[in-house]
């Protein structure tokens, strides 16, 4: 942190970075052969040939859902506010019953028709280009700032190694862009193995050794408790009464939104069968244990007497203070590689959406499967370059705000994507009306609240603070339902006088 380059840590870091680069380029040959259509096809590049079994899916989705930014930001929030920052835990638990119930059906719908994206599934179900476009645009726009945040995660550890300037970040990202271009989804799937094993080692060492050095968990929590007592405000080791509803609604809303993102859905669609997804709903929570332990690092920082100017620096600062530099280097490379996996999958997910649901219907209707793969590869480069320019040119706060809005936006696609999986079908118009209302209301509320995720509702004299995204989703569903009813009664009135079809 003091501006000196930490050579030991940097050497370890470079070693692992070179290792995954080699893996990334080698990945294009990996897991090939089982699939029916070889060669240039979007299924090959964008879904790894739809051939990933339970283990690969576990590493891929785990590596892609628990991002580098999480490793940096969750402990940073816990460090800043305490218990409230822990909402990430119920969020990443509740997501799995939802995945178990919904995603095998979505996978089947996609597999049957050869769909690559959520918007494909929506178009297949409703036959509405407008609804398809709404889902596709929401997906692309919500993913862009998310990619940018992976860069924030990398930036933090690069800084902790003592490197300055923007060149290291740009170089790391250029390498990422190139092997994603050549190997597609296989690259992050293979790198995820390395990254996840590294992260598991780092976290297990940290949660055992750090409390030993600091005098046990009781000492860790009492130091953090004292710090929050001194800090005051809405901080502490438990929630303030007014924080309970925001905590619960943030957890639920985030859990509903999590697998609507293109990057998580890409992991789902790449699975080889529905059973793979069900098994993963059972075993993916192992990563949530890891996340809970990582979150506790925010408390350990108090016991270690760490003070940082920027909360995001809390994890690297803790490692630099407590560990020998070779292990810090190992931990930092785990975090940086942890940024590459989701960034790659996100850019692939966004590229698939753009190609299938924007390029194909509006620019080149006759595009061949090989042409689709080509467009998607180029778009994945553009998306990553855009994220890099974004993060270098604009303040980080802007990326954070947009990512917050992105979560709110992607949640509004839930009815369009999920409701069509049941037997009863709503009309595309009703879903579109709900989506538009949810997007507008949610965005407007978020802006009027100064880009805070929580909106306070006044009911009589009582006030209830809830996650804005969940509030907008409720309105979205109600509007869809009402429009559906109106359309149906309207149609019945029209049909009444005449002979029924």
């Amino acid at each position: 942190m003091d501006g000196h380059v930490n050579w030991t840590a940097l050497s370890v870091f470079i070693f692992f970075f070179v290792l995954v680069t080699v893996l990334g380029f080698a990945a294009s040959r990996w897991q090939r052969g089982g699939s029916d259509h070889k060669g240039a096809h979007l299924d090959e590049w964008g879904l790894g040939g739809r051939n990933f079994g339970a283990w690969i899916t576990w590493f891929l989705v785990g590596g892609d859902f628990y991002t580098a930014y999480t490793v940096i930001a969750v402990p940073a929030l816990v460090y800043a506010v305490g218990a409230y920052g822990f909402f990430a835990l119920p969020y990443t638990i509740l997501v799995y019953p939802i995945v178990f119930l919904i995603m095998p059906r979505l996978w089947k719908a996609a597999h049957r028709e050869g769909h690559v994206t959520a918007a494909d599934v929506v178009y297949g179900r409703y036959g509405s280009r407008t609804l398809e476009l709404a889902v596709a645009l929401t997906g692309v726009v919500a993913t862009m700032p998310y990619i940018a945040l992976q860069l924030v995660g990398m930036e933090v550890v690069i800084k902790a190694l003592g490197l300055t300037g923007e060149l290291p970040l740009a170089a790391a990202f250029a390498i990422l862009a190139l092997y994603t271009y050549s190997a597609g989804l296989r690259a992050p799937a293979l790198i995820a193995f390395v990254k996840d094993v590294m992260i598991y080692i780092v976290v297990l060492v940290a949660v055992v050794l750090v409390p030993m050095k600091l005098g046990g968990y009781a000492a860790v929590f009492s130091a953090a408790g004292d710090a929050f007592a001194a800090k005051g405000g809405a901080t502490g080791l438990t929630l303030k009464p007014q924080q309970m509803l925001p905590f619960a609604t943030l957890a639920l809303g985030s859990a509903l939104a999590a697998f609507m993102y293109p990057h998580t859905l890409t992991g789902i669609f790449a699975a080889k069968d529905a059973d793979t997804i069900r098994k993963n709903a059972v075993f993916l929570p192992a990563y949530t244990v890891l996340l809970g332990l990582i979150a506790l690092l925010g408390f350990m920082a108090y016991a270690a007497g760490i003070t940082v100017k920027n909360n995001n620096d809390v994890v690297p600062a803790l490692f630099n203070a407590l560990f020998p530099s070779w292990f810090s280097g190992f931990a930092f490379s785990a975090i940086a590689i942890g940024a590459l996996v989701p960034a790659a999958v996100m850019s692939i997910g966004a590229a698939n959406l753009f190609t299938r649901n924007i390029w194909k219907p509006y620019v080149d209707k006759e595009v061949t499967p090989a042409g689709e793969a080509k467009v998607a590869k180029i778009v994945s480069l553009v998306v990553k370059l855009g994220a890099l320019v974004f993060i270098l040119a604009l303040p980080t706060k802007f990326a954070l705000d947009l990512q917050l809005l992105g979560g709110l936006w992607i949640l509004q696609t839930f009815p369009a994507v999920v409701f069509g999986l049941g037997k009863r079908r709503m009309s595309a118009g009703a879903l579109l009306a709900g989506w538009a209302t949810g997007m507008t209301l949610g965005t407007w509320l978020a802006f009027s609240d100064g880009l805070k995720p929580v909106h306070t509702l006044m009911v009589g004299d009582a006030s209830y603070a809830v996650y804005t995204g969940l509030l907008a989703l409720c309105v979205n569903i109600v509007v869809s339902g009402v429009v559906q009813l109106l359309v149906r009664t309207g149609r019945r009135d029209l049909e009444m006088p005449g002979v029924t079809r």
Partner: protein
Amino acid sequence: MRLLLLLPFLGLLLVPLYNFTEPTLLGIPFFYWYQLAWVPVTSLLIWIVYRHGSRRGEE
């Protein structure tokens, strides 16, 4: 069977159930270890529902 999957939602969204520090476990306040304990419990519940479904031959 699928109703079992409602349990994590009840256990985690009803925050007043666990918003306190005592009893601590290995020095970790109740608020934290209670939520962490829901991770294996949720896995187990999903596994039970999964087993039940695959025995009935769900595709």
